[in-house]
């Protein structure tokens, strides 16, 4: 490594030649993806193309089968050791993986709020249990995050007493409470009634504007056009096309991409 590149900070996400097999099923077939700090990357593609699998690999919900995956320059899930000129790989301990995960926020299609806790308790839980933040600080922080997603007045409500859009906003606040460097969204609006999609996208837009690095799997092409710095089109486990929203969505070069947007738009 030369002195020129040494002080340049690494990309937030660096996916290099990643493959994923589920048994014999080859789901990711050599994915390369670089997401810079502060960038919003939207992943589009047909059902079953491996979008969820890709972002689940980034926070180690799934173990990759080949390739390397770096977040903020740190190799995820593995440790490389030089031994007699060869590189030996070790899996990281659970505690290490938990630490790596705690820096990445994840938002799910089905919200997955903890139903036995109020909105406030949902947001307080991880800072308390993972970071050992005092109850008082955790509550203050949680209230700040709920305010950020416009849910202050529902802090004492249980998830079952909230609409889908409100639940998803609490879920975003819950992820943000851990001060993540990177936020992953897996179809955050797909389980919502159409009239509730807007409020969640609004929160995500704000978050993007605040400089958060985000990878968003979605079918909301409008959101991609408006917010994405980088659009990635995936099909059948490979990245077919990437570029700006204008390049990929409006002027696709590949037949598969044209086909997909021809149907979606």
């Amino acid at each position: 490594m030369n002195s020129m590149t040494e002080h340049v900070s690494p990309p937030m996400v660096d996916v290099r030649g990643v493959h994923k097999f589920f048994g014999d099923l080859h789901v990711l077939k050599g994915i390369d993806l670089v997401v810079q700090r502060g960038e919003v990357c939207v992943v589009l593609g047909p059902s079953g193309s491996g979008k969820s699998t890709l972002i689940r690999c980034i926070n180690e919900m799934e173990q990759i089968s080949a390739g390397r995956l770096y977040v903020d320059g740190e190799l995820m899930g593995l440790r490389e050791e030089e031994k007699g000129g060869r590189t030996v790989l070790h899996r990281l301990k659970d505690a290490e993986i938990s630490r790596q995960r705690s820096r990445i926020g994840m938002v799910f299609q089905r919200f997955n709020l903890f139903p036995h806790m109020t909105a406030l308790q949902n947001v307080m839980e991880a800072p308390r249990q993972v970071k050992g933040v005092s109850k008082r600080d955790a509550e203050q922080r949680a209230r700040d995050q709920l305010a950020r997603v416009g849910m202050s007045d529902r802090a004492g409500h249980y998830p079952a007493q909230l609409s889908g859009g409100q639940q998803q906003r609490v879920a975003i606040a819950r992820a943000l409470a851990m001060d993540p460097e990177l936020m992953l969204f897996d179809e955050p609006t797909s389980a919502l009634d159409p009239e509730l999609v807007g409020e969640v996208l609004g929160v995500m837009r704000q978050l993007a504007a605040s400089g958060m690095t985000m990878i968003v799997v979605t079918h909301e092409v409008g959101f991609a056009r408006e917010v994405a710095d980088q659009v990635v089109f995936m099909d059948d486990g490979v990245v077919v096309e990437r570029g700006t929203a204008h390049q990929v969505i409006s002027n696709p070069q590949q037949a598969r991409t044209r086909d997909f947007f021809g149907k979606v738009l």
Partner: protein
Amino acid sequence: MAAEPTPDLIKAKPVPRPGVWVGAVIVAVLGLGLVDSLISNPEYRWQTVREYLFDPRVLSGVGWTLLLTAGAMVIGIVLALTIAIMRMGTNPILRGVAWAYIWFFRGTPVYTQLVFWGLITILYRRISVGIPFTDVTFFSIDSKLIFTALVAALLGLGLNEGAYLSEIVRAGLNSVDKGQWEAATALGMKRGTVLRRIIIPQAMRVIVPPTGNETISMLKTTSLVLAVPFMLELTFVTNAIGNRTFLPVPLLIVAAIWYLLITSILMVGQRYLEAYYGRGFDGEQAGGRRVRGMSRRQQAILAAGTVKSDPTLDVTP
């Protein structure tokens, strides 16, 4: 102000059900006959029942029965949690051992197991800790010093109970949506934290009711410890007195009264426990109306649809 037109309310006669009434009368007559016989048949000897109900030997029997029930349930619950978590893990040896444990202890009668625990001091005269298949021993002790009748009875009941409860615990843990694990681990929580804070509190809704039933069932199963033989609990004591005095029936009634009384108390306790689990983390300012008999927290869990509301559970014999 114009009066609103009142609708013509329906006042229809219910469908006559004479068959049900005939049945009810027959049942009532039979019931009254039974009550009459209880009072008029001198063989019940209610005077003797009254005499022995608070006999010190009987009271001590009640105490031992309670001790056995509580002890066996505690052993059972600790084992059940361990076994259920072992079965959910990925280590094949732990999973195999857990499976074999359940297979054996559920597959043989508890009576047989109790006889076996009673005989263990003959089977193993000394208990040694060392390396299997070698002569290396670290220490060794007379097994009679460890396996007293009480220990054998508690172990026998507890190990058997653990096998049943572990299935209940497992059903409870499995009833919690996979998304809960994912959300919690994605936040960086470790396995133990996820279990303790997220999974077990939700699983409790499913676990507590059948565990209550198991406790009531255990109360009566303790009468089988005469197989060990452990001879201080209620059934054995009342039988012994009944045989000696040639008055078996009144002493059976004494035992039955005590079992019924304790069961009734346990039932109240179970309801209290279920309500208590619901109250747990109730938010003060939470909106929404409460449905009677169910805490807001429980309703919230139910409404979220992350747990099955009525899994069919396997319960003890």
